[in-house]
């Protein structure tokens, strides 16, 4: 067990060291993007086609990346991509985790209230992606979409401004990302979704059963130029604004179009003949063959977070549980100690209630972004994730430990008192060993829950298994095969873990039988065997 903990801490320290080292390289421009919105930005597993390094592993390519590189070159900096979920982009900018947002983001009035924008670096038009064989594929005006079920991405102009412009539209719930909407269209859950032309081009390129409808001037969406252009997001009052605008001015329109065409051609979606006839199982095989490294990394991060989080959480829970069971009656404690104990107990109770009573996803947002915004503390995603999992587990374990301690027969404490043992000695030598055995099934349960629940950490961009799955889906647009594979991996992880824990429990219980000492077992041999220290402090 000790080895395991040491191993966990070691693996934990590695990314920290990496992060610490990376600070010394030439000045970087931290660019925030989803890296899952081709052709603007995507994730790939090598540096081909001039992809930029993603902080924490992997490579990002796309139009945003190409433009970022040109801008950064002008600023004398090196691009580092910080992979961030769409909703997390603005908080990440505000908390200083990234320098700029280049994520195909439109400079809307609402966004301008929170952040500054550069001049546009791309202009496009708004289209609707539909199934190629649907009646809407031949539409030419918005009126043709009357009665259609249409969706768009959450918190975008697409959803908030354009969608209501379709007369008689059935407005569907906003979707999290494009892969989701592509799947919704393919499965007939919606009739279409609103997209920029480049995004639609990509989607159709990798999904031959889709088509997109563009509109002639006056027949389509009523669009302000600022609503279809995309711009670089900057922190309010950033002194990068002027240099960035100067850099953008040096990139002519035809160069931009070239880059966009390249991006559409280079995007990693498998449009080639190799994937043309892949069935469901074929896709699963394709994912395993081409992305096993990503999945494996996801498994590694997930297990690291779950294991270290559980170990630290259990230690935390043991500490809190033990403190909360210290007797505070008049005989065992003086007045000062009693007041102190009471105060500590109240604090611990608050800790338990707060972290048990709020969703881990929210805690992750608060710890990762909130600490940055409020106190300028910028934690590495992995550290922030581990912190959240640990304190969350600790809060649950504290109550489990308390129950475990209370479930030990009070006679055990009395017997320990009767042989003159003090509180801590009794805890260590008698009560905790029994309490720990009692809480072992619950602890295993926590571990299994942690393996699954670390998936919520994708909101802060921790590259655990679910996050990797999302990334792969963002490239391949093969939601069902990818997530089924991810689900299978989770099941294997949790099942194996449960079995191992059961085995561990049985070993801890020791053999059913004992051997009677015989005449050949001399008292001396019994006296010399073993080296347990019975909880005594050395």
């Amino acid at each position: 067990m000790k080895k395991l903990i040491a191993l966990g801490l070691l693996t934990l320290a590695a990314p920290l060291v990496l992060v610490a080292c990376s600070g010394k390289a030439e000045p970087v421009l931290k660019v925030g993007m989803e890296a899952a919105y081709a052709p603007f930005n995507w994730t790939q597993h090598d540096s081909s086609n001039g992809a930029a390094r993603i902080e924490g592993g992997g490579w990002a390519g796309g139009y945003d990346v190409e433009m970022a590189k040109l801008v950064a070159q002008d600023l004398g900096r090196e691009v580092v991509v910080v992979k961030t979920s769409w909703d997390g982009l603005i908080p990440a900018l505000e908390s200083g985790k990234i320098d700029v947002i280049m994520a195909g983001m439109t400079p809307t009035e609402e966004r301008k209230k929170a952040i500054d924008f550069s001049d546009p670096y791309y202009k496009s038009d708004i289209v609707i992606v539909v199934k190629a064989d649907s009646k809407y594929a031949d539409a030419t005006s918005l009126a043709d979409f009357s009665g259609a079920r249409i969706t768009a991405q959450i918190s975008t102009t697409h959803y908030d401004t354009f969608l209501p412009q379709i007369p008689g539209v059935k407005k569907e719930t906003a979707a999290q990302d494009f892969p989701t909407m592509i799947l919704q269209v393919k499965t007939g859950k919606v009739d279409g979704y609103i997209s920029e032309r480049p995004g639609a081009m990509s989607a159709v390129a990798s999904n031959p059963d889709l088509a997109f409808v563009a509109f002639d001037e006056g027949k389509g969406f009523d669009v302000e130029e600022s609503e279809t252009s995309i711009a670089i997001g900057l922190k309010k009052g950033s002194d990068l604004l002027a240099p960035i605008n100067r850099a953008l001015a040096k990139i002519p329109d035809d160069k931009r179009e070239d880059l966009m065409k390249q991006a559409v051609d280079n995007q990693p979606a498998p449009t080639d003949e190799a994937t043309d006839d892949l069935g469901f199982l074929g896709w699963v095989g394709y994912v395993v063959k081409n992305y096993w490294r990503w999945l494996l990394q996801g498994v590694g991060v997930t297990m690291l977070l779950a294991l270290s989080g559980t170990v630290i959480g259990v230690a935390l829970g043991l500490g809190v549980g033990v403190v909360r069971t210290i007797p505070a009656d008049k005989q065992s404690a003086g007045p000062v100690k009693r007041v102190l104990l009471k105060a500590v107990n109240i604090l611990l109770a608050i800790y338990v209630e707060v972290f048990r009573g709020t969703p881990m996803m929210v805690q992750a947002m608060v710890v990762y972004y909130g600490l940055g915004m409020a106190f300028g503390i910028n934690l590495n995603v992995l550290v922030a994730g581990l912190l959240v999992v640990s304190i969350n587990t600790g809060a649950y374990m504290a109550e489990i430990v308390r129950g475990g301690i209370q479930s030990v027969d009070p006679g055990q404490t009395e017997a320990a008192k009767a042989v003159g043992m003090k509180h801590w000695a009794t805890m260590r030598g008698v009560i905790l060993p029994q309490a720990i055995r009692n809480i072992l099934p619950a602890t295993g349960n926590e571990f299994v829950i942690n393996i699954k629940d670390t998936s919520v950490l994708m909101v802060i961009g921790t590259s655990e298994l679910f996050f990797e799955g999302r990334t792969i889906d963002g490239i391949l647009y093969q939601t069902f095969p990818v997530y089924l594979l991810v689900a299978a991996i989770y099941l294997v992880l949790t099942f194996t873990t449960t079995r191992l824990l059961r085995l561990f429990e049985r070993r801890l219980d020791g053999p059913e039988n004992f051997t009677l000492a015989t005449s050949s077992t001399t008292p001396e041999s019994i006296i010399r065997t073993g080296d347990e220290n019975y909880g005594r402090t050395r």
Partner: protein
Amino acid sequence: MAGPVEPDGPAQPDGPAQPDRQVEPDSTARPGGPVEPIVETRDLHKSFGENQILKGIDFAVNPGEVVSVIGASGSGKSTFLRCVNLLEWPTSGQVLYHGRDVLARGYKVTNYRTKLGMVFQQFNLFNNLNVLDNCVIGQVNSLGRAKSEARERALGYLGKVGMERYVEAKPRQLSGGQKQRVAIARALSMEPEALLFDEPTSALDPEMVGEVLSVMGELAQSGLTMVIVTHEMAFARDVSDRIAFMDGGVIAEEGPPAQLFGAPEKERTKEFLARFHAG
């Protein structure tokens, strides 16, 4: 009620030869001279909320004495014994150890408890430890003995109660009688000045009562100071120097076994004993 054990023939515990070690009482003095009691209680009261259990108990046990405390269920016998080694904190009154008040603030209670061994009705063996370690943990933790020495002593006392062959067994693998014998060895391993027994045979199946009583009988003969709360009247009569009869939270009558069982003075004592003889 289980049958009383033969007084004059305590069965030898099974197993190989007894170790040479004898339980050494602190003093061999029997009552008669002006001896200082090991433990004394004065006007001891104990209430649980409104419920008054002990209503003023004056009691003393002298070195080498064997005192049995008898009385009906609910008369306060066990509470009294638990107040003596402070497992329950008395509401008022005094507990004196060699004349010093152990209830005084700052008195080292844990240290005091090591001087009084306790044998519980429910055995209370440490479930996570094997038989040997049950007898070692207190010695190492509270007395600071080296482990090898603690093991040696534990083996000696386990031999005395006939359990030295079970050193590796966990409590859950033992019968009730075996558990209680180990519990006695655990208490003896601390080499206390007196041993307190809280209804040591009440939780046992009838056929196991004998083995425990015979061990206790031997201890009484070896000169160990003992206070025994018990319902085993015949045993109490045979091994005790003195009997205390408790009724309604006070010691109603106290005296040598022959007097208390043969010619009790109080009406309540007579009634109580009559119920036993009738059975």
